[in-house]
């Protein structure tokens, strides 16, 4: 659509006498001013990690040591998945200076659509546990979510109705639609493959595969660092100091290993483990057998979505346009970007991600209800904002939002562990949301 021929117009190489023209690329590396500066990591991301650590330690103390257990952290990871998936889309929506209040309702309606389609159409056609069932269930849900999102995007971009209003309307419309799909009935899900998306003992990959994934992740982290360095070397650009690369790669690998150790430390209860092993035809030694959960499938889905979305935001034209539009919509327009089409695509993507969130949460509960996802929009927006996405538009990261999802879920699980009633939990979540936006406002004023 745009041409990329860039034979540049020659420019007079006429620096006035006295100022030697520097050869491109010969620019001296600006001396790193600090340890963190040299690492080139986002200070906010570090701050968030710190906040998460504080939350975890405080809850562990308040809940008498029940928070920082392998079991609770594993559950936390599963519970965060759905919100984390949706928060990656919310980042792009908010970066473009919009908002989507309808994600919880889209989750509800797409969950119902998937359940009704699976039970009513796919099972009779293909039979029990046929592999086509999960594929078509997901395809139907994601298409429905994308279509709903695209409809919102169309009204926002082409008819000029503010996103706040369109998605506030959507919040009611799709919640009502979720009821209408099955007249308020709860639809149980029966496909065993689909249920794997919800986690649980069968929905985890086990110890060995968790280590395989960990090793691949560590290799990928190292390879990414090497690749980035090579690219910059090719053009003789200033480089990060080598020690900084090592610090980052080693920290990343340690984090992966720590997470793997935690999920592998969560084991099936002895009775279940024995039954499971016997079913698999293993001989059980008299002292019992230990079977680890390992990474849960919904967590892996969320991480995969995070990686894909990070790629989309950083490495594709679409992602670049989303940020440019968020930074200066007029400039993006004048640069020839079709801002309306990008807006529509962002909302469609948000809808598709809400459907993935719906697949995870209906699979986890083994059924779809018309109330599913109620208030999720608040958690998703809070996750994005806590994760450093500015409501002023133009800035935010996928990784930050996913970490924000973990923060929100930690707060909620911690309160559940402490037996805080739901209404009080909501009070806390509401306050945290406002507080996070206030912090963001203060932070942005300071750096101006």
């Amino acid at each position, binding site marked *: 659509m*745009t041409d*990329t021929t860039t034979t540049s117009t020659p420019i007079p190489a006429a620096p006035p006498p006295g100022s030697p023209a520097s050869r491109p690329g010969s620019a001296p590396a600006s001396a790193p001013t600090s340890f963190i500066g040299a690492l080139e990591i986002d200070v906010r991301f570090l701050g968030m990690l710190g906040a998460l650590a504080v939350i975890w330690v405080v809850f562990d103390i308040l809940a008498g040591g029940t928070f920082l257990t392998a079991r609770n952290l594993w559950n936390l990871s599963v519970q965060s998945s759905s919100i984390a998936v949706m928060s990656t889309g919310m980042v792009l929506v908010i970066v473009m200076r919009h908002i989507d209040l309808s994600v919880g309702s889209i989750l509800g309606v797409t969950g119902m659509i998937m359940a009704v389609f699976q039970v009513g159409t796919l099972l009779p056609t293909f039979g029990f546990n046929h592999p086509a069932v999960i594929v078509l269930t997901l395809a139907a849900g994601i298409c429905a979510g994308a279509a709903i999102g695209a409809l919102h995007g169309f009204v926002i971009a082409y008819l000029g109705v503010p996103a706040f209003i369109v998605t506030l309307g959507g919040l009611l419309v799709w919640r009502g639609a979720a009821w209408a799909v099955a007249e308020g009935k709860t639809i149980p899900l029966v496909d065993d493959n689909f249920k794997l998306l919800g986690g649980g003992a069968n929905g985890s990959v086990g110890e060995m595969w968790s280590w395989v994934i960990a090793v691949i992740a560590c290799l990928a982290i190292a390879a990414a660092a090497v690749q980035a360095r090579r690219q910059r070397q090719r053009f003789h650009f200033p480089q990060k100091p080598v020690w900084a690369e090592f610090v980052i790669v080693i920290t990343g690998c340690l984090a992966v290993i720590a997470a793997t150790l935690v999920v592998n430390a969560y084991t099936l209860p002895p009775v279940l483990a024995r039954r499971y092993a016997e079913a698999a035809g293993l001989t059980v030694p008299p002292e019992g057998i230990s079977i680890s959960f390992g990474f849960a499938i919904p967590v892996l889905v969320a991480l995969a979505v995070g990686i894909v979305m990070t790629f989309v935001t950083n490495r594709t034209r679409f992602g670049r346009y989303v940020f440019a539009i968020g930074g200066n919509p007029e400039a993006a327009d004048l640069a*020839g970007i079709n801002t309306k089409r990008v807006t529509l695509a962002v909302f469609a993507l948000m809808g598709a991600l809400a459907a993935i969130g719906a697949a995870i949460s209906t699979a986890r509960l083994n059924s779809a209800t018309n109330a599913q996802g109620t208030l999720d929009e608040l958690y998703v927006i809070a996750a994005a904002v806590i994760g450093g996405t500015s409501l002023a538009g*133009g800035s935010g990261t996928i990784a930050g939002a996913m970490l924000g999802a973990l923060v929100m879920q930690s707060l909620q699980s911690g309160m559940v562990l402490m037996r805080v009633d739901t209404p009080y939990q909501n009070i806390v979540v509401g306050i945290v949301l406002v507080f996070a936006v206030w912090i963001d406002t203060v932070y942005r004023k300071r750096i101006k």
Partner: protein
Amino acid sequence: MNAATSPLAPGASRVSGTPMVEMRDICISFGGIRAVDDVSVDLYPGEVVGLLGHNGAGKSTLIKILAGAYRPDAGEIRIKGEKADIANPRDAKRYGIETIYQTLALADNVDAAANLFLGRELMTPWGTLDDVAMEAATREVMGRLNPNFRKFKEPVRGLSGGQRQSVAIARAIHFNAKILIMDEPTAALGPQETAQVAELIKQLKAEGIAIFLISHDIHDVFDLADRVSVMKNGKLVGTARTSDVTKDEVLGMIILGKSPPGALAGPGAATD
């Protein structure tokens, strides 16, 4: 008036008969305000035409119509003698029209390279953004425009006004423009960078690029422009070759709207 036979056409030694750009009888209003009212200007290859006028005269609005940012209510645009339909900035770029906007039109939250290539990113064979190649090209073009520029990795929000202006100029000249629109390109630049931009304009002109230059500095305009067109309250006061009029006469056009004998009077010329 037919520009091809206009007495104001630049010397036959340098130009062919057809102008690169003709904007004829252009009108546009915002609400009740007629921002541009029946204005006709033209521009030949290798020519610099200065657009002059008070604040709010309608200069930026006129060139934004050529750049595809606004659609005119009436009038037509011809490129190389053929009627051009410029519905959006992409169309304008397809005609080889590049623009340095008065507002610079930079996305503040991304770096210089991202702004330079905004809308025409360089891609790797795998269809991903080739950020290193874009940074390399940016370093090269900026190295010549503003050799002291170092902040390649920073969002342009963190740049000085002059540095931002350099980025906007770099963007306009990097893509083989045939028609260049410069809306106050040196407003934020220091004397050294301003001199460099003047050099640049002379070189681009020598290459046959046609340039509309908007500036409030009448001395600069007289140094660089072959002709000037003056606007007042959205109307064209007149067009004159810089060799046929004095600076005082042009000031009279700007301030009083009086078209001197050396100029071709437009519809906005004061009648006394």
